[in-house]
């Protein structure tokens, strides 16, 4: 059993507008262990994405973190200043977005945007960086990395784009990747490939992955642990097999029923 990398305790996030206040997350507890894939499962609007964003402190201005701690390697991320967050984002914790078409800036080449991560987080010479990016793209299984590097995001297919996004996320060798529904826009074969890729990267790069998804099938195959979230609270967290075999919460049962 490896140590806990990310520990979220009692996290509450709410949206406020003068008198009106609504909790998006209430007292969320979540642990991600080192070199472990945690599947965070829940229905639409249950607060999955909000958890992901609040770890990186990228919540929309209307959302306020009310209480709780987010311990990453023992430091409370919520106590860090804006400036101190920058070296953590991308370098320690990075994010894979749901729709890479929008997550890449359309006016720059994909290769240049992956390179950006290296510019901000690694001391590398220009030439080294180019080779490194090429290497990264190969690592995530892009068949023609040279061409992908030169392409704009709209010129790549959905699967390639998602791989490029993953390449960007692992560029600075982070410890934790937050993958926000990484496969929901892909067809089943591509989903399987991306799942393979995640599994491979986990062991190769000693990564932990927080896999945010509503796809129970995917979690079943990929995740070591599962957390089920409903209406802003984590109702159940445990090892995948255990949760699938002996769900302890009614909502989990219903989810599993829906799957079969």
């Amino acid at each position, binding site marked *: 059993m490896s140590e806990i990398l990310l520990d979220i305790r009692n996290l509450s996030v709410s949206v406020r507008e003068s008198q009106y206040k609504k909790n998006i997350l209430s007292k969320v507890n979540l642990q991600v262990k080192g070199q472990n894939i945690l599947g965070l499962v829940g229905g639409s609007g249950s607060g999955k994405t909000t958890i992901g964003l609040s770890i990186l402190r990228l919540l929309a201005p209307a959302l306020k973190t009310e209480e709780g701690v987010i311990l990453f390697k023992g430091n409370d991320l919520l106590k860090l200043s804006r400036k101190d*967050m*920058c070296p953590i984002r991308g370098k320690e914790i990075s*994010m894979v977005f749901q729709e890479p078409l929008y997550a890449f800036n359309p006016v*720059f080449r994909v290769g240049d945007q992956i390179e950006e991560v290296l510019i901000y987080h690694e001391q590398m010479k220009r030439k080294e960086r180019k080779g490194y990016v090429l290497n990264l793209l190969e690592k995530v299984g892009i068949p023609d990395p040279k061409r992908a590097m030169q392409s704009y995001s709209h010129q790549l297919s959905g699967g390639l784009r998602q791989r490029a996004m993953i390449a960007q996320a692992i560029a600075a060798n982070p410890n934790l990747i937050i993958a926000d529904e990484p496969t929901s826009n892909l067809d089943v074969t591509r989903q399987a490939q991306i799942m393979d890729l995640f599994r491979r990267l986990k062991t190769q790069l000693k990564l932990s992955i927080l896999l945010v998804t509503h796809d129970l099938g995917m979690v079943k195959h990929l995740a070591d642990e599962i957390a089920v979230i409903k209406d802003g609270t984590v109702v159940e967290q445990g090892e995948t097999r255990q949760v699938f075999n002996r769900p302890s919460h009614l909502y989990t049962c219903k989810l599993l029923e829906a799957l079969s």
Partner: protein
Amino acid sequence: MSKQRKSKTQFQLALENYKKNGFAVLCLVILIVLYGGAIFADFFAPYTYLSESRDNSYAPPSKVHFFDEDGLITRPYVYNRVFHFDEYKRRIYEEDLSRAYPIRLFHKGEEYKFLGFIPMDTHLFGVEEPGMLYLFGADSRGRDVFSRLLYGARISLSIGLIGVSISFSIGLLVGGIAGYYGGKIDNVLMRLCEMFMMVPGFYLMLALRAAVPDDFNSFQVYLAIVVILSFIGWASLARIIRGMSISLREREYVLAAKAMGMTDIQIIIKHILPHTVSYSIVAVMLSIPGYILGEAALSLLGLGIQDPLASWGNMLSEAMAIAHIRLHPWILMPGVLIFLTVMSFNVIGDNLRDCLDPLLKGEKK
């Protein structure tokens, strides 16, 4: 599928669209000629902007002869002029046919420093002393208007570029920051912009000019004018960039850039401002004439570039009296060049707007 078709870049597409408008291409050529003339002014000009010959005050343009007395084609030549006074004490110039001065290419004339540091004395063309060549006539002190136009172009044309680059860097940055952060910062910056926009441009220009010490040398005055002009232009740009920035900051790639650990200012410069480029290029083109006209207006009033230094504005100030325009119409030449430049920039800007706008693509013609 051995041969891969390379897709056209945005730039190539824009260039293709641009070429469709013949007039805009012509305007581009005019600007290239004018700027080329300004850069190599001391080589193209037969005289320096200082050299005067009082005997040729307001001498009309030299007549270039291509045929000799027998009517045969010969190398072009000019005659010197002598003047006498008519009954109103006006100088009447007549050609002195006693000696012809052939126009020579790569003529050795007055010494100058090419591009400011290479000493040279070769001019593109000229005539031997004591002959004088006035392609566009002479001004009140007998200085060659053609040469002074070239030297003046250096100041008049560069002021537009430098001014625009200063005011656009300010405008882009202020607009980007205001839009990106929003809230209080936005409020303060936009109210500041409005303060600048509230004052009519020309009076602001005069007021700022009055604040400049009068013991400045000509170069300092030049810099002061550039700064003054760029202080006027940035506010309206900042407002528009702010609007674009507000909508751009909500894009997901901005969130992705944040998740990558970029700081706010890096995101503004790398991910927000590049998206405003197609607007900015057009805005630059359309606002350069404002700077050229601003300099001309200041110099025309005697508040800008001071004689003997030439700028199109202060050359034009000689043409303020109607009598001069009536008697020596060639001193209006700087006005013609200002007109050409301003028109060219406007036409180019308009055409660029059409061919950079992705929404209009293919719709026209």
